């Protein structure tokens, strides 16, 4: 899975840990390093490839030299600040996150940043099954072979095999017994119907 590296530069310890915990839960975002002061962060930035910098407003003010030295950095900077009296856009920053933002707002903002990088290969391994796939899981649990399932549904064996591959990919369950237990605990079939 592709991942984008974030570094954090937030003075308050509790805030920094909170931001790190929230970011880590967003698939594709990865916090490589956390800093509580500008100098160490600036040093790190010079020697490492970083996709995004998330910095709190107080430390941003102390880091003006760094932003003058590296003009492109603003394009990759997310500012963390209190909610303003009047609403304002992201301005010169890539994005602004407010302390009052909820989980969904933060996730949406970060995903907006990640999307261009993931547009073509975003995976959804645990998405739910389609109705057709559920039918197939049901018939597999009843002990039918691919051929029998194909006949019953008026489909080719090849199509059934494709469906079964997709099911394995979605659920991560390969064996018939595994699928059967999955079908029972997800109410696709009852124990009595299982052969």
């Amino acid at each position: 899975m592709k991942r984008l590296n974030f570094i954090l530069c937030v003075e308050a310890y509790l805030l920094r840990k909170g931001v790190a915990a929230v970011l880590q839960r967003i698939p594709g975002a990865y916090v490589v390093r956390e800093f509580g002061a500008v100098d160490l962060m600036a040093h790190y930035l010079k020697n490492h490839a970083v996709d995004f910098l998330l910095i709190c407003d107080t430390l941003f003010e102390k880091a003006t030299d760094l932003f003058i030295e590296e003009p492109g950095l603003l394009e990759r900077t997310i500012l963390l600040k209190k909610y303003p009296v009047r609403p304002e856009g992201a301005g010169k920053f890539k994005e602004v996150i407010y302390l009052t933002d909820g989980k969904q707002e933060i996730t949406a903002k970060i995903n907006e940043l990640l999307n261009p990088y993931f547009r073509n290969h975003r995976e959804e391994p645990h998405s739910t099954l389609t109705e057709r796939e559920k039918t197939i899981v049901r018939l597999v649990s009843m002990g039918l072979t691919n051929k029998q399932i194909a006949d019953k549904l008026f489909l080719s064996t090849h199509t059934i095999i494709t469906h079964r591959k997709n099911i394995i990919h979605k659920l991560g369950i390969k064996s018939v017994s595994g699928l059967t237990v999955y079908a029972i605990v997800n109410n696709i079939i009852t124990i009595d119907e299982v052969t």
Partner: protein
Amino acid sequence: MISKNIPMCQAVLEHHRLLPLLPRFNIRLGFGEKSVDEVCRLNHVTTDFFMEISNAYLDDDYIPQTDLSLFPLGDLVGYLTSTHHYYLEVAIPKIERKIHQLLDGSALSEKERGLVSGFFNDYRKEFLEHVSREEQIVLPYILELEKQFLKEKPDGQFMKRLQGYTIRDFAREHDRLETSLENLSRLIIKYLPPFEDFDLCHQVLTDLADLVRDLIDHAHMEDKVLVPRVAELEQHLLRKFEA
């Protein structure tokens, strides 16, 4: 989080989830007053490595503190291998034994019994396949990667392979092994008729939950420590070769 200067005894008492990690490092109890660092040294374990693994294991949101390139990949591979052995030789057989005991003393129908024992049997087989794949392909690849990195000039064929398959591909293909176990617990709690021997049933469910937790931690460790470390080495090697 633990730090390396506290007594090992205190670390383990406060975080009993460290216990199953100790045999994987070949560390035995009876620590006396020794610190985490001292115990590691005595057992020929790189302390920083032990710290990274333990903290990643204890804290889901843990972010590696030390430079990941500080410890040799051989340590990591050794740790993963002994963890696999723990699953295959200790954790899974223990659960399997108890499940059979539970089924033997139960009033379940033939079909229900077959469902549970067949399920666990297949699970064990899949687990074994998963582990063999890692041990035959992924781990040797990692060791070879390190070996090539230390050479003056890397082997051309290896470099070609590196462009075709990287640790990121492994990370993407990496199956989750805990989902099926959770389904089994759900089956027992919700759908099967109740077992007479509640205490044994309780033990089975607790062991299943412990294994699920351990597998999640293990996967977490692979994603947060192993994959970034190996990916970094791959990048270094590609750069070294290009230059």
